[in-house]
């Protein structure tokens, strides 16, 4: 059927915010419990979003709105690409476009806090993007394809042959979800913060809501990518994704913020180093694997 991909994309784009909101609520609840607090109810992120959407529209300039919408659009497009089984490289480019939109939105205003946040967002991009690219290369070396649709029908789970890449991907998830110790550009759902609210300082009301929605899509996308590591069954993939999320929440709660230079050094030395070793190993001996 010609309309099937459209229907799948539509379904995923409608359901992803529900899942992303619930996962965010779970994150806030679990974080509160880890801190010996009662914590907000599971539906709290939805109340926040509805409230934000019905606040007054206050903008610094029109370009800002454009970039907020572009961020949402690109992240949602990246998620649709994952759901439709498209090219992993294309997915990475789309996701990077989204992040760059957010950065440009941060730079489009005159607030120094927003600009600092945008610069730090670029540093984050610089830290995790090479690891993601090596991850895609490793997936290609193992499965012989960049297409998600081929990767998911690969008869064996990827995790046993990509263990170091998986560790690198954990690092990517923590950076990308803006969790401690890497909540440099902005921090989400936390009373603690630095530089006012970083890159989101000059976004307010409905536009902050748009960015929040984009974060939910991003969360689902990142957990979906984590699921690729054990894509032999849906349940295994969901289990891996949930474990990755729990690991990210735990790291968030046991660590303090580091500087951007530390993050960059760590991501390139530890994350990129592990990923590179895994890729070299796959390149030399991957052909003989079952």
């Amino acid at each position, binding site marked *: 059927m010609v309309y099937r991909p459209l229907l799948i994309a539509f379904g995923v784009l409608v359901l992803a915010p529900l899942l992303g909101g619930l996962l965010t609520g779970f994150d806030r609840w679990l974080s509160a419990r880890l801190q*010996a607090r009662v914590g907000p109810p599971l539906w*709290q992120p939805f*109340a*926040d*979003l*509805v409230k934000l959407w019905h606040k007054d529209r*206050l903008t610094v300039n029109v370009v800002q709105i454009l970039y907020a919408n572009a961020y949402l659009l690109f992240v949602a497009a990246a998620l649709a690409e994952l759901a439709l089984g498209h090219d992993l490289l294309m997915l990475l480019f789309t996701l990077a476009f989204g992040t760059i939109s957010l950065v440009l939105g941060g730079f489009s205003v005159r607030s120094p806090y927003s600009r600092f946040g945008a610069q730090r967002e670029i540093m984050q991009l610089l830290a995790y993007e090479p690891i993601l690219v090596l991850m895609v290369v490793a997936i290609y070396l193992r499965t012989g394809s960049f297409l998600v649709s081929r990767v998911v029908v690969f008869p064996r789970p990827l995790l046993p042959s990509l263990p170091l890449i998986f560790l690198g991907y954990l690092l990517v998830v923590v950076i990308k979800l803006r969790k401690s110790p890497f909540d440099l550009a902005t921090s989400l759902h936390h*009373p603690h913060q630095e530089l006012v609210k970083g890159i989101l300082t000059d976004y307010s009301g409905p536009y*902050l809501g748009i960015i929040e929605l984009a974060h939910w899509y991003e969360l689902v996308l990142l957990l979906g990518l984590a699921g690729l590591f054990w894509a032999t069954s849906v349940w295994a993939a969901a289990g891996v994704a949930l474990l990755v999320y729990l690991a990210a929440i735990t790291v968030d709660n046991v660590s303090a913020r580091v500087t951007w230079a530390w993050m960059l050094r760590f991501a390139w030395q530890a994350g990129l180093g592990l990923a590179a070793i895994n890729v070299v190993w796959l390149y030399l001996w991957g052909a003989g694997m079952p």
Partner: protein
Amino acid sequence: MSIVRWARGKSPWYFHYETGSCNGCAIEVFALQTPLYDLERFGIMNTGNPKHADLLLVTGCVGYRSGRVLRNLYHQMPGPKAVVAIGVCALTGGIFHDCYNLAPGADKVIPVDVYVPGCAPWPEAMIDGILLAAEKLRGAPVARDRRRLVEEEEPPAGGAGEEGKA
């Protein structure tokens, strides 16, 4: 539109401004974040940014200088919004009420919705005040009438004050 009212009552984010005093009330406001009082169970969050906030918490004696900052911050908040004055200094000026450099109460500078008396008030009283203000947010007009009301009544927000000219 009832879902909008529900969401407003369940997710008031506050911004705390200490106008400059003994910090007794400010310390108690920080105590609201601790596991003992845990404001987040009501969906209430602290933001450091007036543009993300629904409630403005004022503590301390409002001086004529800090009053200017307070007014600026108030105008940077997008509506619907409410102000909670905490502590006797923010309410009336307290023992400093006849000082030459102080406004006798935050309500001489910005409209105050909820008054929480005490020196310093108990955190429980503050939670009560914040939830009262959240009730007020719930009653704020929804949808299109709001925008018209805002344009007529409030000075242009965001760019108001000294910062807007920079």
